[in-house]
């Protein structure tokens, strides 16, 4: 009997201990009767005069440093043409497959030029590419005016009606699901992959692919785009850059033999030229374009806000002074980043995924641009040693022709403004 009592007693204590292990404290309530007397105070305000000392700078990404080549034919806006200069082949070529015997290259039999179009307007009709032979002396200082009038006027090599080639029946690859359209007469083809990129493959016969011994096979070409109306496309670069496959005729003990060059030729220069040149920087805040422009804004947060409040949301409001011009596909991102140190135009940017915010700029739109900068504002609150500087730049930088210009702080009615939402300090301990 005594044992049973003790067991019951133990069970009761164990039940109490189990109950003590967890807590459930959520219940319905009703304010104001069953809430604290003080509430969080939200402030939603516009800081109209906190941004100042703003300025714009151009030249951050030059055309030959851009991630892509821009082709555009936008009458009244811009005419942009990609250029390539391919590597040399050398004067001699292996003529016997089982030997290392080389023969002098006499001439070109043919060549195949391949390049990627990474973005194009599928709704635009009559898009046509024209390939021009350019002087091999082109370099990064070559301007549109040096080439037109000039090679772009009198050195047409091939014309590729892109639309008509795309309209031909295609053959779908069962593995890659890419679709190949072939012009058997001209020997050209295009391959549209699942990312809607177009691999253009142009056959150049001996009259179009000239082997100049003095240049040891170095050649340069340029592309001109046209369409029924506005036309704009992006041509690949680097990993998606242009290649040239030579098929050459070499001398083998007095006998001309045809041989393929042992390797694809890449480019030593891939750039683009355009007209008119980029507009000069003025008092507005320019962002984007080529060469890329950036604008630097300096923020002076009121001390009570910087030191005491908790920011829920901060939005940078920018009023366009000049809308971006181009075609619809030329929209781009404007991103706001901060800097490690404020050295003006050469301020090193903080590059991370947290302290960058962006807004898309649509061509022709003049609506107020809103960029979320909450993370930046919170960063400056937590570390007052960081310069409260915002750099506006385009993304991708130097790879879109349009640029946008915002009103600067000097334009009182349209100056950059911060829309700030924050919580005031809660009066802890106050009844």
């Amino acid at each position, binding site marked *: 009997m005594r044992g049973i009592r003790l067991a019951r*007693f133990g069970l*009761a*204590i164990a*039940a*109490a201990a189990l*109950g*003590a292990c*967890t*807590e*459930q*404290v*959520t*219940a*319905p*309530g*009703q*304010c*104001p*009767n*069953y*809430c*604290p*007397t003080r*509430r*969080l105070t*939200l402030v*939603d305000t516009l800081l109209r005069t906190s941004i100042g000392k703003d300025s714009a700078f151009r030249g951050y990404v030059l055309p030959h440093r851009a991630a892509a080549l821009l082709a555009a034919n936008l009458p009244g806006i811009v005419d942009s043409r990609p250029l390539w200069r391919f590597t040399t082949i050398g004067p001699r070529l292996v003529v016997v497959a089982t030997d290392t015997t080389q023969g002098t290259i006499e001439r070109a039999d043919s060549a195949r030029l391949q390049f990627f179009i990474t973005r194009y307007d599928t709704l635009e009709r009559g898009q046509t590419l024209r390939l021009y032979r350019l002087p091999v002396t082109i370099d990064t200082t070559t301007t549109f005016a040096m080439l037109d009038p000039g090679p772009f006027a009198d050195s047409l090599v091939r014309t590729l009606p892109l639309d008509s080639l795309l309209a031909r029946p295609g053959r779908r690859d069962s593995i890659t699901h890419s679709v190949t359209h072939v012009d058997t007469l001209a020997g050209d083809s295009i391959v549209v992959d699942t990312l809607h990129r177009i691999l253009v493959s142009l056959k150049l016969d001996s009259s179009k692919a000239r082997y100049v011994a003095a240049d040891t096979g170095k050649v340069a070409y340029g592309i001109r785009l046209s369409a029924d109306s506005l036309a704009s496309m992006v041509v690949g670069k680097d990993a998606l850059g242009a290649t040239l496959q030579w098929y050459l005729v070499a001398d083998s003990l007095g006998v001309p033999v045809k041989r393929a060059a042992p390797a694809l030729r890449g480019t030593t220069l891939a750039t683009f030229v355009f007209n008119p040149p980029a507009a000069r920087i003025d008092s507005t805040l320019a962002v984007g374009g080529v060469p890329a422009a950036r604008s630097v804004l300096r923020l002076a947060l009121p001390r009570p806000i910087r030191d005491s409040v*908790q*920011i*829920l*949301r901060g939005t940078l409001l920018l009023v366009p002074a000049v809308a971006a011009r181009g075609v619809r596909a030329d929209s781009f991102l404007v991103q706001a980043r901060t800097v490690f140190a404020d050295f003006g135009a050469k301020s090193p940017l903080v590059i991370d995924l947290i302290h960058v915010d962006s807004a898309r700029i649509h061509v022709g739109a003049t609506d107020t641009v809103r960029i*979320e900068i*909450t993370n930046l504002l*919170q960063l400056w609150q937590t570390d007052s040693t960081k310069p409260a500087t915002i750099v506006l730049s385009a993304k991708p930088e130097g790879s879109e022709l349009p640029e946008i210009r915002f009103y600067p702080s000097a334009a009182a009615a349209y100056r950059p403004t911060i*829309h700030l*939402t924050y*919580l005031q*300090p*809660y*009066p*802890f*301990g*106050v*009844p």
Partner: protein
Amino acid sequence: MGGMPLAAQDSQYGIRSLGTPGRWESVRARSTAGAFGPFDPLSPLMEASLADLGRLTATAMAGTSFRTATLGNTTSALRETRFPLLLLAGQVAPQLALSAGFTTYLDKSWSVSTRDSVVLSGVNKPFTDLLASDGSVADLRLAAAVRLSRRLALGAAFHVLAGSARLSAQRTFDDTLYHAVRQTADARYDGLGVSGSALVGLTPELTVALWGRSDNRLRTKVAGATTAEIDLPRMAGGGVRFTPSPSARFAAAAAWRSWFHAGPGAFNTWSWSVGAELGSGASPIRLGARGGQLAFGPGPTAPTEFAVAAGTVRAFSQGHALIDLGLERLVRQGSGLDERVWTLLVGITLRP
């Protein structure tokens, strides 16, 4: 403001004020609904009863509450655990006993979650606020009691009120473009108090207890700055115990507390209790009922409470160790809120 979940520990009635006052009773006294509180040397209510403690004794208690709170059309179940009492007492001279220990003076743990919305940039933005306090104010008591005669014992105590609470306020918008933010602070509380009591044996079977207490104020400091000083109440109470036989003891008690000065929503309170301890030997049965008013509430009148309690005790090691068990059913009502609480109490007492 819409309906909202609300989290509160002990009682929602204390959220808008100082907190929820603790009960200065051991498991034995609580099992009789507080009726034996003035006569229980291990309850930190009255000091004079220490004079009859005899030998060194230590006690501690824990309580687990299962609470159903009904507010409007919503009912929620809550569960919480507290360790509100630790006390050491003993006789240091033939007529003199001392005691030191702590009990909960104010429970300041609560958490309130509210749903609301605000128009920002012309768009209605719903959000959730979470305001919380986690802490308490403890009553550290140093008490002495002396038996002047067979009929009269006196006691006095000095009280130091000390405590802290971690306070937080958080707002989270449904629209994630608005970042969730949280503010926190540590609040510290302090105050002082004195109390005195007397135990008068009118007859061998009938004993009367009287007690009084005065606390000065509760000072709140946040980040080193005083944010509030709130007057604390004066209290007085008494009780009567009737022992017709060794196996039957009856008691009744009443108390008055002047919480009114603690600010808006505070009331002076009366409370009463009656109880009995039946049976002799190792496991008596304890019963009791109590009622009265709560110190804080949102309405024009003080909320009320009523409780019944029962319990027993089990002795071990020839009485050197005691385990007290109690069960209390409590109902609090007022200003639209209805709280119904089951509380399981466990006390451990050691008498080496």
